[in-house]
């Protein structure tokens, strides 16, 4: 794939020579993406190469680039912080221009009173959180963590995290959006379109954002989002995020308005019950099942290792043999984390009391070791800032998520045993990390106010070992079979895998979905906003004759 000289020139004219490159090393650094090895031929770590990488500095430049892509029939693929195989070009046969948005990195405004901030695509969650906390405000950081782009999670991708339960999903939190469509129009949604400011995402009349910001978002397949306003929430903590401790386990002291707990329950039925009770009582600020991502068998030892900077993974074999760790592992088996925050001391004390009653009613308990200062303060920093999300990869550098079907806690608890059994089975041969079948992590609620959960199985494989990679791919296929044979729709793995499929296979799946009309509607939306088909198939559509 090479770029026509004239096209290169047109693009260079927009951004200047320093901000475009088609050097193969630059191309490769954008083709290289996590998860590629699970879906690409020969377990290659590279997605297809972009024909060039370009870095615009403004909406107008994005618009001009879009027009060039239309002119030369190139796919346009934006990336901001980009941490997935679908952030790169998808099909070998396409000429794809990678638009790296990192120069658009400003926080344009923080409206403290009205509780929103306006940001460009390369502002990451940690940056904005640090700034808004100075004003007593907070943001919903998505599960993928502090390093992610706010614009991406608000406008173009999932958008939930441990704080969604209280702070809302980023699809709820997004206010005005600025969107450069594939046909090159600049669309400003909600109140912004009327010139009335950024504060409202709906209307006038039907909400236009509905065509581009659905469950998943268009993941770069339907134009480029160049700015958005995001709703902020109250932060009843200190204005400075003053962590202490030695890396890697920094610790955030627990302010008097907060409580940080790791809780556990005796059964999955009790797990669902306690979730419902937490929802009904409206306690909690951050609510997440986090630490189990490292596996219910090895996880407890890992977290203690991480909290002692003199230790390494070499210590884990010995540790798991210790009787106290064995006990702790059992105590933590069905566990999750909750951070309570009170608007006042009375409020936090009452929440504490309610939590005790909820625990009593469900047979649950506070896990003592994980509620001690060191672990509680680590939990506090981990979940408040989500700066440790790369721990997803801690075992060996490769992790894939399976399951994660969203649903009510009662629904989720149905697939939990199947997911656990499946991982034990698939890891038995030693090609996947054997950290315990329950490596299930997920939000307390992915819908604001509670009611909706989902657990993702964290499956670790070695990206430097082909056989392990293949086992990862096989696990995903097995998880789909396990789900379907139990009457459950496929989970997250199906989306991962589909990146490697031919168009026809994807279309077959979409056509066989329960309401294929959805994808016909999306085709029509694409035809209306992307007549020259310059967006890639991350925005899924069904051909007319399917």
């Amino acid at each position, binding site marked *: 794939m090479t770029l026509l000289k004239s096209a290169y020139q047109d693009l260079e004219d927009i951004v200047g020579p320093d901000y475009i490159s088609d050097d193969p090393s630059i191309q490769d650094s954008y083709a290289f993406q996590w998860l590629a090895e699970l879906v690409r031929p020969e377990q290659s770590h590279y997605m297809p190469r972009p024909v060039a990488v370009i870095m615009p500095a403004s909406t107008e430049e994005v618009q001009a680039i879009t027009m060039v892509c239309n002119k030369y029939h190139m796919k346009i693929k934006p990336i901001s912080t980009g941490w997935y195989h679908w952030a790169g070009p998808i099909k070998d046969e396409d000429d794809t221009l990678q638009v790296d948005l990192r120069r658009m990195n400003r926080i344009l405004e923080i409206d403290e009173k009205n*509780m929103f901030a306006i940001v460009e695509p390369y502002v990451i969650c940690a940056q904005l959180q640090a700034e808004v906390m100075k004003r007593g405000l907070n943001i919903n950081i998505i599960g993928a963590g502090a390093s992610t782009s706010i614009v991406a999670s608000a406008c173009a991708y999932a958008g939930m995290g441990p704080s969604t339960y209280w702070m809302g999903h980023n699809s709820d939190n997004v206010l005005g959006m600025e969107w450069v469509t594939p046909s090159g129009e600049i669309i400003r949604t909600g109140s912004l379109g009327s010139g009335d400011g950024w504060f409202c995402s709906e209307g*006038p009349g039907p909400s236009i954002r509905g065509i581009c910001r659905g469950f998943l978002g268009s993941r770069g397949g339907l134009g480029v989002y160049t700015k958005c306003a995001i709703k902020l929430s109250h932060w009843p903590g200190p204005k400075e995020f003053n962590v202490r401790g030695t890396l890697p386990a920094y610790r955030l002291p627990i302010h008097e308005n907060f409580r940080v707990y790791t809780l556990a329950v005796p059964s999955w039925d009790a797990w669902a019950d306690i979730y419902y009770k937490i929802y009904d009582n*409206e306690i909690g600020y951050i609510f997440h099942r986090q630490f189990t991502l490292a596996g219910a068998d090895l996880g407890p030892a890992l977290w203690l290792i991480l909290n002692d900077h003199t230790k390494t993974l070499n210590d884990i074999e010995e540790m798991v043999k210790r009787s106290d760790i064995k006990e702790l592992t059992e105590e933590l088996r069905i566990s999750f984390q909750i951070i309570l925050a009170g608007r006042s001391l009375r409020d936090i004390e009452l929440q504490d009391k*309610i939590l005790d009653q909820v625990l009593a009613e469900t047979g649950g308990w506070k896990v003592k070791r994980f509620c001690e200062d060191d672990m509680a303060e680590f939990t506090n920093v981990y979940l408040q800032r989500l700066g440790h999300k790369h721990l997803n990869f801690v075992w060996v550098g490769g992790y894939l998520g399976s399951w994660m079907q969203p649903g009510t806690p009662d629904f989720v608890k149905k697939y939990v045993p199947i997911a656990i059994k499946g991982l034990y089975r698939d890891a038995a041969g030693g090609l996947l990390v054997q950290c315990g079948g329950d490596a299930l992590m997920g939000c307390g609620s992915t819908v604001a106010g509670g009611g909706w959960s989902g657990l993702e199985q964290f499956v670790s494989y070695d990206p430097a070992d082909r056989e392990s990679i293949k086992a990862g791919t096989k696990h995903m296929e097995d998880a789909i079979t396990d789900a379907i044979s139990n009457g459950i729709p496929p989970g997250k793995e199906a989306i991962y895998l589909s990146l490697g499929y031919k168009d026809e296979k994807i279309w077959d799946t979409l056509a066989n*979905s329960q309401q294929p*009309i959805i994808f016909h509607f999306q085709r029509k939306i694409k035809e*209306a906003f992307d007549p020259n088909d310059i967006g890639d198939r991350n925005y899924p559509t069904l051909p007319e004759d399917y």
Partner: protein
Amino acid sequence: MEKKKEHLDRIVGAEYVFDDPQTLEAYAKDLSFVLPIKPQFVVKPKDIDEIKMLTKWANEKGTPLIPISSGPPHFYGDTVPGAPGCIIVDLSRMNKILRIDRRNRIIIIEPGVTYSQIQPELVKYGLRVTMPLLPRGNKSVIASLLERQPTLISRYNYSLPEPLRNCGVVWGCGDISYTGHAGNGSYSLDEQWNAGHIPIDPRGPNATDFMRLLTGAQGSLGIVVWASVKCEVLPSIRKLFFISANKFEDLMDFSYRLQRLRLGDELLLANNKLLATMLGNSDQVRDLKEKLPPWVMIIGISGRALLPDEKIDVQEKDLTDLVQQYGLNLQSEIVGISNKEMIDTILNPSTEPYWKLKYKGGCEDIFFLTTLEKVPHYIQIMNETANSLNYPVSDIGIYIQPQHQGVSNHCEFNLPFNPNDLKELTKIKELYSKVSEELIKHGAYFSRPYGMWANLVYNRDAQSTMVLRKIKKIFDPNYIMNPGKLCFKSL
């Protein structure tokens, strides 16, 4: 004509097809200034199949359909035919409560289900639905939510369409799809339910948020045949508090603070005229108004689920502390009306006649969204314009409803008038259009552009107009759904 009727008879049954002049007349107009046009028929389908057939037939014939779910009176012109030859699809027969699920706090209802119908049912399950301010008893819950009417508890308003979650839709093009999580499953809601797929997540399906397209659409894209709505736990204790002020500005910072802290449940701001109209009989309004302070903030607190008394206690104490910090005064009574009476009066559906009509028989509403700090400016515009046209400022009811947890605020002016007084009618028409224009010019965001507002709003926003027309073409390519509304004037 006869042929048409035969078709309609076949689809919904002859007894549910109406073309008698009286019925047609009733649907030809509402209390807005939108020009009356008589529909050709009024039909009352009973289910999704009939609606599907109607839509198919309407597409073939090019006959416009106007869905209506709530009972009269209507106010905003959105249900008034925009062209001759329309068929009103009155959904009032579709009033089944399909599911009430306590554990998941979700209900599935048909469009004809009204607030006065659902709330007592929900009480049996220990639930309730967050309501708009004093809706008329026959107001369809689904219609209210689809129109993004503001609800009283901003804390629960994580997103403006809340608590609306999933919808079943017959689109203008005749295709059926479900929005949100339900769009991932089969068309059988029972089947979905039995598989544990509860329609809670509002997003999607897939890359599109179809529900958001339907909100604010005034029925111009499709007909919603069912919807799931999230409920709250029914409080076991409730209390109301009042804070008086001489001017709106005195309450502003405090309102911001409460919103940020999410303290309490109901939170609204009303001027004395509005509150008097809410509380009094027609002949008491004037008196009551005189007795009331110029502005009142109403704050509701509730205790629900575990330890309700302590919840109330903590909220009350926190509120008391906070009020002091702002130099305000927390009252548990105002003009001698007991707390219970207050709760019954203002936190329920309206009694008959509809409260806004009590004072003069007619009322025009002007409403829009804004950030709170701009409200005083808009009040000033309202008052100045009223003065310039000799409309009594003292008659204007003002209602400020924080939404989206305080990020946006519904600002509403109620302009009562005597519909039988031609002079007053002319004046109010002039005032209505002049104020609307002025407000829009000054950045008031008319997110729900009814009637004459549509032109004013869309003329300022060419891009949104272009996008909306593209959307319309996809979901209602023959423009059969409620033509003439919003920016969908003609093909």
